[in-house]
């Protein structure tokens, strides 16, 4: 069943078209990755899905229902959780507080139940256990990423949007992050993953889309994409003549 359908999505920042008629589908239970170089429109696509971009045309459907024009608060309540670029962990709140606020989209759950869920998250991310009372600004990049993902999962999303989770992380931490992403899918959450690290992204994804300057270049299974000359060219910076 199609969980997310993006049809003819166009977005502009100022005078520039950042997305030019993009079509993307995500099936329930999949990990789908959006690849492409800087400025291809990957992050903008995620920002459109979660309602952060104003000048948008086309349609975005969640489970067959249009979510275009809804506010970010409303979209997360429908079950789309966005872990944005740069992690955006609240610097002045502790790890535990950051994570518990991830459940702000859910109504009528007691504080005690939520604290219990945070404990559950700290079991999934054991490195955070000893940091639960540390303020956000004191954490390293890898720790921030773990907090951001844990916070995103507290929303109990149907669809998790992950923007560049490997950015700026040491290779060992990147592997840890991708293990977590595979785990998340195993727990039944669909993932739409934006990455520059194509190799890691294609190693966990079921399907991938490659964007170039706001348009779809090619899409398909990881093996096919990995062997596609266009993709290789795009990642080497421009088309071969």
């Amino acid at each position: 069943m199609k969980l997310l359908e993006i049809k003819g999505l166009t977005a502009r920042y100022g005078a520039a078209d950042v997305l030019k008629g993009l079509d993307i589908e995500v099936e329930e239970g999949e990990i789908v990755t959006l690849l492409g170089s800087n400025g291809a429109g990957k992050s903008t696509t995620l920002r459109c899905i979660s309602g952060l971009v104003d000048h948008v045309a086309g349609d975005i459907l969640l489970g067959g229902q249009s979510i275009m024009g809804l506010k970010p608060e409303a979209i997360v309540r429908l079950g789309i959780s966005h872990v944005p670029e740069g992690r955006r962990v609240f610097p002045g709140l502790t790890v535990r507080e950051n994570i518990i606020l991830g459940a702000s989209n859910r109504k009528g759950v007691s504080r005690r139940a939520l604290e219990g869920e945070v404990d559950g998250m700290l079991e999934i991310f054991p490195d955070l256990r000893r940091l639960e009372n540390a303020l956000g600004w004191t954490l390293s990049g890898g720790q921030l990423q773990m907090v951001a993902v844990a916070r995103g999962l507290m929303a109990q999303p149907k669809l998790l949007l992950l923007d560049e989770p490997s950015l700026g992380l040491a290779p060992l931490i990147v592997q840890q992050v991708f293990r977590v992403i595979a785990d998340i899918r195993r727990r039944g959450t669909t993932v739409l993953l934006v990455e520059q690290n194509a190799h890691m992204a294609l190693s966990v994804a079921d399907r991938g889309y490659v964007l170039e300057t706001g348009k779809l270049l090619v899409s398909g299974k990881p093996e096919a994409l990995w062997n596609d000359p266009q993709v290789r060219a795009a990642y080497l910076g421009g088309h071969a003549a």
Partner: protein
Amino acid sequence: MSNFLQLLFNGLGIGAIYALVSLGFVLLIRAASVVNFGQGEFSMLGAYLLVVFFNIFGINYYVSMALSIVIMAGFGVIFAYTTYWPLRFRGGLPVIISTIGASIFLENLVLVLYGPSSVQIDGLFDADGIQIGDVFLATQYLSIIVIATILVVLQYLVFEKTLLGKKLQATSQDKEMASLLGIPVVFMILITFAYSSAMGGLAGMLVAPLLFVSVNMAGIIALKAFAANIIGGYGSIPGAILGGLALGVIETMGASYISVPYKDAFAFAMLLLFLMVRPQGLFGEKISEKA
């Protein structure tokens, strides 16, 4: 020594007023990045509401206070929608100018409705105060210190111990991320305006029996509260409290030991001194809004 203790007590009393008004400033700076130059008028309006309910309608003093606080909270929401909301994407300066405009409008509105004559109003309690040794604890000062302490403790508990407080903090640190988590950012900002307005109004009601209630009663208090905010550390909650108390004590001591006519000058001399020597204030922000 007894004179010193007496001045310290009176200074803390007036300092608690500065601290309350300064807290109103700080909360709005943190939640909505708004520097609200109408903060003093919140106090003036609160005092006038008390005058209307108690002096004119003859309603019980404490009921009048409660009514005034509720009305001020509602007024804070109206203030937010008219002064801040239309300009919220236009950056800091347009909103500052708009709050200055609102403060001029409110002063003149009261002038038209009530006239220029100032009014006297009763204190919270009939008793004058308590004599302890050589120090006389005036009831109104004592009430101000107690109420301010309770408010600060309550505010600390709400901010640090409840999810609502965490959501308010999250909103002030990163509005876009807060909205992505499903935190109703607009509602959080309106709550902050309502609370700032109610607290400012209460400060006005508490200080009213010590001064006359007049249209410009709050101007100087708001200026000193703003100075307290800079001295304590721009946008810092503990800074607002300590800065307010320190200013109250310094100007009371300065007036007594150095010069009465220069009473108001001490606060601003302190402000200048801090801007020169320690511009980040006592509690310079440990983090900027976006670390």
